[in-house]
């Protein structure tokens, strides 16, 4: 059998570390003078705090207050008409900040730009939904998963989780198996809190065996009828089977023996 490792705090620590693992870094280069991206940077002016070219894409960092202005310039002046991705990364433990990013595409010249900004915990960001319709759902997802508020969004409510959900699941502090609210959600909603005792907690251990439960488990040599009381040590000498499926077919095997 595999060695048993307690799984209580498994979410809090890395259970596998590769000694030889080197975090891959994406090579960065400066924006060349006179290139296409230099023109984009020129149009954005001094709103850009940092810029580089990674894997043939322009990556810029901006202040969170400027996001609408930057997106507007990128769309109207530079022709970035598609916002293909937008989300956030949780750096709360490290800096008490979220990193937000937007990935834009200029279909005409097949160039992409990624816009980053750092947003303090609890601060709100301006919606870019008036510019890119795709931002509607993306911003709702960001709100649902991280709890980041979006100003002037037309319909800011949860998109994936139920409306009455508590907590924001993509935060790094959110446990993978859910908090107490999550683990009782369906029971509370359908039957009410008083059924918690009757239905019991979720079984998250796929290898769980309950020897007192004679409805779901049977022990070799200690078989009892389905649903019978568990009796600690009462060995049975015959194998007990009452399923219709398992037919040991004693008669035919006897006939075969006789024929031999």
């Amino acid at each position, binding site marked *: 059998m595999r060695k048993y490792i307690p799984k209580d705090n498994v979410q809090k620590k890395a259970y596998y570390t590769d000694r030889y693992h080197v975090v891959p870094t994406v090579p960065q280069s400066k924006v060349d003078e006179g290139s296409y991206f230099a023109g984009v940077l020129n149009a954005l002016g001094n709103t850009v705090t940092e810029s580089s070219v990674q894997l043939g894409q322009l990556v810029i960092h901006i202040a969170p207050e400027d996001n609408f202005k930057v997106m507007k310039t990128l769309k109207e002046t530079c022709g970035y008409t598609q916002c293909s991705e937008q989300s956030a990364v949780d750096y709360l433990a490290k800096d008490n900040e979220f990193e937000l990013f937007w990935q834009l595409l200029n279909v005409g010249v097949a160039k992409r730009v990624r816009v980053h900004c750092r947003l303090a915990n609890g601060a709100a960001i301006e919606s870019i939904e008036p510019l890119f319709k795709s931002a509607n759902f993306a911003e709702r997802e960001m709100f649902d998963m991280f709890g980041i508020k979006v100003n002037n969004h037309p319909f800011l409510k949860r998109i994936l989780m139920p409306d009455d959900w508590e907590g924001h699941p993509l935060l790094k502090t959110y446990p993978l*198996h859910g908090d107490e609210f999550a*683990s009782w959600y369906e029971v509370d909603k359908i039957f009410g809190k008083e059924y918690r005792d009757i239905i019991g907690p979720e079984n*998250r251990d796929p290898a769980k065996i309950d020897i007192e439960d004679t409805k779901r488990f049977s022990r070799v040599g200690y078989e009892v009828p389905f649903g019978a009381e568990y009796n600690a040590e009462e060995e049975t000498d015959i194998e007990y089977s009452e399923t219709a499926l398992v037919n040991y077919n004693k008669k035919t095997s006897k006939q075969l023996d006789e024929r031999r």
Partner: protein
Amino acid sequence: MAQHQVNYASSAGLPIALTSVDKLVNWGRSNSLWPLTYGLACCAIEMMASGASRYDFDRMGTIFRASPRQADVMILAGTLSKKHSEFARRLYDQMTEPKWVISMGSCANTGGMFNTYATVQGVDRIIPVDIYLPGCAPRPETLQYAMMMLQKKIRRESADMKKNTKQDLTTQTGKRARLI
């Protein structure tokens, strides 16, 4: 004096069949199981395949119905998310008695590989299940086998549904509840 004796208990030669009401009713019920068209995830694809021409559920009298009011079997085919659990239970409640439930696939049985905050860890937490069908995904033959097992189960039952025990939800503490 009669030349031969008629054995009324056998059907030889006479157009009669002796049976009990239970058997007759259950014969009717078990041979026209109408499941609810209710696919939740990838398992539903296999359920659709079972209904389509190659595997052909119809020959067993199993016709998928699009309304819970016309269905008597609920095949929970796939991952039941917590957001959806309320509606699954509502559909189950809308089905008329007698009704049975097949939990299809690992996800419906135990939560399967989705050991996360958003998935119901086994649909038997909210709905009493008659047949658990293992597999990820179970092949259409397996679903047909489960349907045949359900037919067998129905034939064993009493025609009076009140006498039949629904699945008990056994908890770790050993308490039992009937969630019919």
